[in-house]
């Protein structure tokens, strides 16, 4: 009911900027993947376009899954990317741009929230990763970092599943 007002304060919507940034970073990474530049360019462009259509074009029902094609397309891109510093920086940038788009996405009513504070921690993590890549160029360090993060995330996911009442959707349907 409150989510349908047209934006009033911005001629250029922040989410459009975030989408453009995502596409640019995706295309830049796509040029270097092993499947060739055509697939590399088409994959992020299609993913972002599909996400944008799901978000804006097909109504409220599909809005919640709008991020899925973007995450899938851009994530697949990183699997075939060469392991070098530019690719790592671009991959980190894509992840951050995705969060930037998410930060602009929940505000269809023309309100722009300064999400920079929410992006600080992920940005720092990417920065630390890039610095680690520069200073400690051995693949085992990454494996250790990845394994540690993986364990932490699995614990977090286990906590979420153990406390289903803390999921917003579950709380809406729970009897009062």
């Amino acid at each position, binding site marked *: 009911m409150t989510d349908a007002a047209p934006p*009033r304060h911005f001629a250029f919507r922040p989410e459009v900027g975030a989408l453009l940034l995502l596409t640019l970073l995706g295309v830049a990474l796509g040029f270097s993947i092993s499947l060739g530049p055509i697939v590399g360019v088409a994959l992020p462009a299609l993913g972002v376009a599909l996400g944008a259509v799901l978000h804006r074009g097909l109504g409220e029902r599909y809005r919640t899954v709008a991020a899925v094609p973007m995450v899938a397309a851009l994530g697949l891109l*990183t*699997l075939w990317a060469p*392991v070098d510093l530019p690719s790592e920086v671009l991959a980190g940038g894509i992840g951050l741009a995705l969060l930037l788009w998410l930060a602009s996405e929940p505000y269809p009513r023309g309100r722009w*929230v300064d999400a920079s504070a929410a992006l600080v921690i992920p940005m720092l993590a990417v920065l630390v990763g890039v610095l680690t890549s520069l200073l400690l160029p051995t693949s085992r360090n990454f494996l250790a970092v990845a394994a540690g993060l993986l364990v932490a995330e699995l614990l977090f996911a286990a906590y979420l599943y153990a406390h289903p009442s803390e999921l*917003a959707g579950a709380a809406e349907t729970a009897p009062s």
Partner: protein
Amino acid sequence: MTTPPSRPSGSAPLLWTRRVLLLVGAGALFGVASVLLRSSVPLFFALPLLLAPIAAGLFLPRRQVVAQVEWQERGSGPRVRIAGRIRTDPPVAPALLYPTFRAPAPLREREAPALEVVEPALAFALEYETPFPCVLDFPLPEIMWRDPLGLAESPVATVGTPLAIERYPPELHRLGTVNLRRTTPLPGEIRSSALGAAGEFFTVRGAIPTDTPRQINWRATARVGSLIANDYLIERTGDLVLLLDTRPSELGRQRDEQLLSVARAGALGIATAFLQAKSRVGLGVFGEFLEATPLGTGRRQRFRIRRLLRSATIAPLGGPAERLAVSMRQYYPPGVLTLLISPLAGEEQTLLLPHLRRRGYNVIVLSPSPVPVLVPPGTTESAEELLARRILRLERRDRLGEVWAEAPTVDWEDYWSLAPLVALLRRPAARGGNR
């Protein structure tokens, strides 16, 4: 307008949105892929996704947020314009608040709610329209706090009062000048407790700028040396009983509810106009049994009448007409002017009149017409619709003709105008004359 906020203690409840599952799932997937493929690139992509929920959690207010809603209604006629502000304690960024406004029937949304951050509050403007007069309470909005990434949210406790919205035909403001018939044995003995510019002399006091020259006591002024004015005890002009027929009719529940909404608005408008003129007004709501507010005056009486009107719904079962007439005698003296508001949509509803008259009540009927409800007026109407409306009007004319034999009847088809009722009440013969 608002009640002081009661402060819920404890920390704010945190609810994760489904987006968290997507991010954490995708991050974990690409993390695993990174380990399996021995490639650091997917891990760089996964890193922001995995850390985003932690960043979102850091934004969560440390204790339960309480939002105070201050709002008012500014529209007129069918337009309902609501403007207000939402302030929070503890203060949170207003842009992170997501209010959901649920407009009660019959309000229809004209424009989507406009929200604007006016630090430190969130200002909102709502635009609705009502197709017919109504009396309703707009409920407080449900408010959610959401983090900037849309990953976590927390319900916000809302304090304030529902917004009262009242729409009735503007002609009713002129009703106050109608002198009603008194039903007290000695007119002039029962006075209003209110003071005013006319009536029985009460006292003198220092003049105020709004006093008229007639109110100034010039002799007292000359003696004292400063302007002195007279105060008078205002006399009550008379008594009126409003009677709503909420029995189900053959029109069906939904249409009955629409007509009841119109009747409620009309009753409140009429009561307001007469109460402002210091008359005594009572209200009876007859469904299966009679619910009554005895005759009374003043702002409290208006509040009582409004409360009874708000609670009035179409009864599941209609009571017999004689029961109403018998019950009326328990609350109201015979001879009092009774305004029966009934759509007269069935034989049973018209039977009320002879019983009321037999018990000594002087009845005028205000009948909200069911025709606009049965065939809603549109911009383009087909020949069939025009014919249907014509037949319905003829049927209704026939029925009202029969009712006229019992009591003066006003057909209320244009819901936004009650000029025929005002004209009828201004005629002393119709309301029984002054004693």
